[in-house]
């Protein structure tokens, strides 16, 4: 069974204090790994898709990286507006129809 584990569950940072969020996964072959941001009372907002180990993608203060077992979302010099829950999801590549499995998310709070 596909599993996605995100850590930590919650993270509190001072503005400007860089850190990383972790997403570890167990799938029988990875077709894609997705990162989303979810603000309270809203639906998830797409950030990145990663397809293969070694791949990196950046957007403003966020950089996502991928290895064969986990992905990291690095946040450089975060601002209060980066406060949100960050969700990771995986799409396996084991033939036939497959669906994404989401992790439970990391709730990030950035304090001014």
């Amino acid at each position, binding site marked *: 069974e596909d599993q*996605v584990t995100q850590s930590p569950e919650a993270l509190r940072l001072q503005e400007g204090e860089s850190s990383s969020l972790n997403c570890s996964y167990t799938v029988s072959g990875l*077709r*894609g790994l*997705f990162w989303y941001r979810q603000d309270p*009372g*809203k*639906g*998830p*907002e*797409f950030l990145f*898709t990663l397809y293969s180990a070694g791949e990196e993608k950046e957007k403003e203060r966020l950089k996502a990286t991928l290895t064969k077992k986990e992905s990291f979302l690095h946040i450089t010099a975060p601002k209060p507006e980066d406060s949100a829950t960050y*969700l990771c*999801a995986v*799409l396996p590549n084991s033939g036939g*129809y*497959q*669906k*994404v499995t*989401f*992790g*439970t*998310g990391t709730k990030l709070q950035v304090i001014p």
Partner: protein
Amino acid sequence: EAGVAQSPRYKIIEKRQSVAFWCNPISGHATLYWYQQILGQGPKLLIQFQNNGVVDDSQLPKDRFSAERLKGVDSTLKIQPAKLEDSAVYLCASSTRTFTDTQYFGPGTRLTVL
């Protein structure tokens, strides 16, 4: 470009009552998804439509949940009768074709079952 629209935004019902949610995807998106997100958890896929056909509904509790996609555009998700454990946010998402395409989510409907 208009995003995914959902209504209502909030709904409170008594257990054993019925409820329906509506979703209008982004124009031109062939694939539509319904997710259930329980507080503190990630979204769980309930059903996926491609155009007006069901691709996967393996995680849909079919004894009480039903969904349809009218003419391959709008969709409704119904719960009848509701249970306490159905309290959750119901998210609709759409994409151009498949899971590898970016999914765009609506704001969700927060359901409380008393």
